């Protein structure tokens, strides 16, 4: 049986361990002395300084250290360092991108290592195998030379001479057991924690103390916590989170599950249902479908992933049932790999007995790979977009689709989606080609985000049904019961328990927090997900 909790070192992938080993061997071979003391010839200056900083005590900062710690929440002004005057610029390169950051950065710091590179040979033409011999090839910095050599400005601003809280006499008191750690990564590190906080950190806190801390504690103790966290990680992982926190997680999960299960097991269907008149966006969708002529081609962009299937199915099924009752010709498309399969699943689960479905009188255009790019391509030219099927059939050859040249030739476009983004992508990319806008049946989470589009000018989203709630509204509009009704009571009990649990759980958390503020807490991790 594999171990559940392991030491982070132990859990390092083998390739990373091998890398580390190689790194250590090389370091041992080339640097017999500790790097911070000797200063590696290959080590960039900024890294030496970081190492040096954590090994050097400074006695001169208390109040200033606090200020400086706050100061690093902002980037330094563009193109300069606060600590250093602008230095002599390096010679202007012959050709420079207008967006190259070479000027300011080069002004700030001279390269720590030489950047002798071929002046004109394109990297693409270089022998790839030779790439290790080229010292500076930035990934996407604006000026590779400068970035390669300089210490990031924000890091520079934290150097000892600029007031970053360094190790001082408080550090020993803060560290576990008031003594230097004999081994491990914390062996010679320190931190800056105000004396007022020391009492709370007097003994080694548990790994999960972080979440029990107040904002103030967190602000001041962030560094020490990070250090302790790593140091004690393996030990803490072997221990369960504190009982109160574990209990909270378990109680919330158990109560929520029970609240949802109760109406399902009892078969209750008595919960109040929402009044459709309060949801005009659902009414607009209903009205537009209700006037469709028989055989009208309707495009369903089935942008669904399995995670959202269960929740979106009631709303999608309610609208699709209406479409099938109006004898619309359904055409499915999806930019999600799983969209076509989920469309088939919904058809099989809910509409297997409907004549149009059982006889296969619908078209599944399949999956459009390429995200927004593919969508853009499809919207501007549906027929030209790549729509391969394994059988290499031309889906557009079927009689009902013969007349479709443009997207606007569809009588109605419905986006069935689990999130607002895919619906937004359709709305945004189709803003020009679809002046009439489109409709959507989505997850509850997309609802708030799509509302602004319902009122945009020109109107890009004309109607919307979202979540189980939307399904119930639509079913009421149609006077039919469906999945929405089936789930509604459980949903209602789940909603009630969620509101209650958040309120009571929040109060309980505050109580725990208040206790932790009064006396040092042994831990405060959470339990469960």
């Amino acid at each position, binding site marked *: 049986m594999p171990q*559940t909790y392991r030491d982070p070192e132990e859990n390092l992938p083998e390739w990373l361990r091998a890398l580390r080993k190689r790194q250590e061997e090389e370091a041992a071979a080339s640097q017999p002395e500790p790097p911070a003391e000797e200063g590696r010839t290959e080590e960039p200056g900024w890294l030496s300084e970081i190492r040096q900083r954590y090994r050097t005590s400074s006695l001169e900062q208390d109040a*200033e250290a606090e*200020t*400086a710690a706050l100061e690093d929440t*902002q980037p330094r002004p563009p193109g300069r360092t606060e600590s250093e005057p602008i230095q002599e610029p390096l010679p202007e390169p012959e050709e420079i991108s207008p967006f190259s950051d070479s000027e300011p950065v080069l002004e700030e710091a001279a390269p720590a290592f030489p950047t002798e590179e071929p002046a004109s040979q394109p*990297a*693409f033409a*270089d022998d*790839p195998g030779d*790439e290790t011999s080229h010292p500076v090839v930035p990934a996407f910095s604006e000026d590779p030379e400068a970035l390669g050599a300089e210490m990031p400005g924000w890091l520079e601003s934290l150097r000892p001479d600029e*007031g970053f809280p360094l190790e001082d006499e408080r550090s020993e008191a803060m560290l576990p057991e008031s003594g230097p750690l004999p081994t491990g990564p914390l062996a010679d590190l320190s931190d800056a924690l105000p004396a007022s906080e020391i009492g709370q950190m007097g003994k080694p806190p548990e790994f999960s103390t972080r979440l029990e801390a107040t904002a103030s504690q967190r602000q001041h103790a962030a560094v020490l916590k990070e250090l302790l966290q790593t140091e004690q990680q393996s030990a803490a992982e072997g221990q369960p989170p504190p009982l109160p926190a*574990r209990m909270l*997680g*378990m109680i919330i999960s*158990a109560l*929520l*599950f029970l609240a*949802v*299960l109760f109406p*399902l097991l009892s078969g209750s269907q008595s919960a109040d249902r929402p009044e459709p008149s309060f949801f005009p966006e659902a009414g607009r969708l209903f009205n537009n479908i209700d006037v469709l002529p028989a055989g009208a081609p309707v495009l369903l962009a089935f942008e669904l992933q399995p995670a*959202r299937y*269960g*929740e979106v*199915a009631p709303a999608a099924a309610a609208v699709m049932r209406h479409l099938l009752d109006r004898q619309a010709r359904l055409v499915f498309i999806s930019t999600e*790999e799983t969209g076509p399969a989920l469309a088939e699943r919904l058809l099989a689960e809910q509409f297997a007995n409907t004549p149009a479905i059982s006889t296969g009188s619908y078209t599944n255009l399949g*999956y459009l*790979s390429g995200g*927004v*790019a593919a969508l853009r391509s499809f919207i501007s030219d549906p027929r030209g977009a790549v729509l*391969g*099927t*394994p059988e290499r059939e031309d889906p557009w050859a079927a009689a009902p689709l013969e007349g479709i040249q443009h997207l606007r030739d569809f009588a109605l476009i419905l986006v069935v989606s689990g999130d607002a983004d895919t619906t*937004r992508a359709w*709305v*945004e*990319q189709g*803003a*020009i080609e679809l002046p009439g806008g489109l409709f959507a049946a989505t*997850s*509850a*989470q997309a609802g*708030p*985000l799509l509302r*602004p589009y319902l009122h*945009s*000018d*020109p109107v*890009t989203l004309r109607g919307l049904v979202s*979540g*189980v*709630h939307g399904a119930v509204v639509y079913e009421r509009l149609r006077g039919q019961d469906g999945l929405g009704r*089936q789930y509604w009571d*459980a*949903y209602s009990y*789940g*909603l009630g328990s*969620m509101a209650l649990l958040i309120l009571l759980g929040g109060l309980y958390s505050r109580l725990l927090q208040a206790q932790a503020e009064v006396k040092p807490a042994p831990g405060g991790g959470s*339990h*469960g*997900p």
Partner: protein
Amino acid sequence: MVLDLDFIGLLVAAVLTLVVLSYALGDHPIFRFVLYLFIGVSAGYAAAVAVQDVVFPQLVYPILDELNAAPSLDLAELGVRVLLVVMLLAKLSPRTARLGNPATSLLAGVGAALAVGGAAQGTILPQIGSAAGSFDMASFNLAWQGGYYLEAIEVIFNGIVLVLATVSTLAYFHFGAVSRGKQEPLRNLLVDSLAWLGGFFIAIALAALFSGVLLAALGALVERLDFLQRTLSLLLGAP
């Protein structure tokens, strides 16, 4: 006893559902096992669908057609596609990875262009345009002419709140400030005041969005527990 594939599938789905839901009570090795199973299955499925729906029709079939002397694409287009694919495959090894940069740069360029176009055309301009409806002037005129002055003022008030929420939210994120040496940088009074107000509106908007995610997850939970309950009923032979 003959077990048909559908029935086994139902059992498998029910067991997997139970294992994953049990994670809510705490992590355990069986959950991890299911997690890795899921990663494997979903990766295999996604890659196969992509190959089947895109790579075959866009690349493999045209090459086969070309080899069979029945070209379905012009040679230059096919050549570019093959070249791009070879470049991308060069990314498999660190030694040849740089050869593939043009292929990834094409993706980056196209992605950036679509993002820029979508943001400007699809979001910023329509959302500015939608501000025109902030004040429901039709309702205002109706109320005013009918002597419902309080309602008319309410319409105006609503519009002001709507516009203020948008403006203050935008102002909240204003990044520029004046450096004050060791102290925190300061924004100007107008921006700071608007930003203070914007904080409230942002919190409310985030709460609305968070509730949406909560309700979506609740919907999924209801569906799963309903599925488990129905499966159990089926197994127990209940009607």
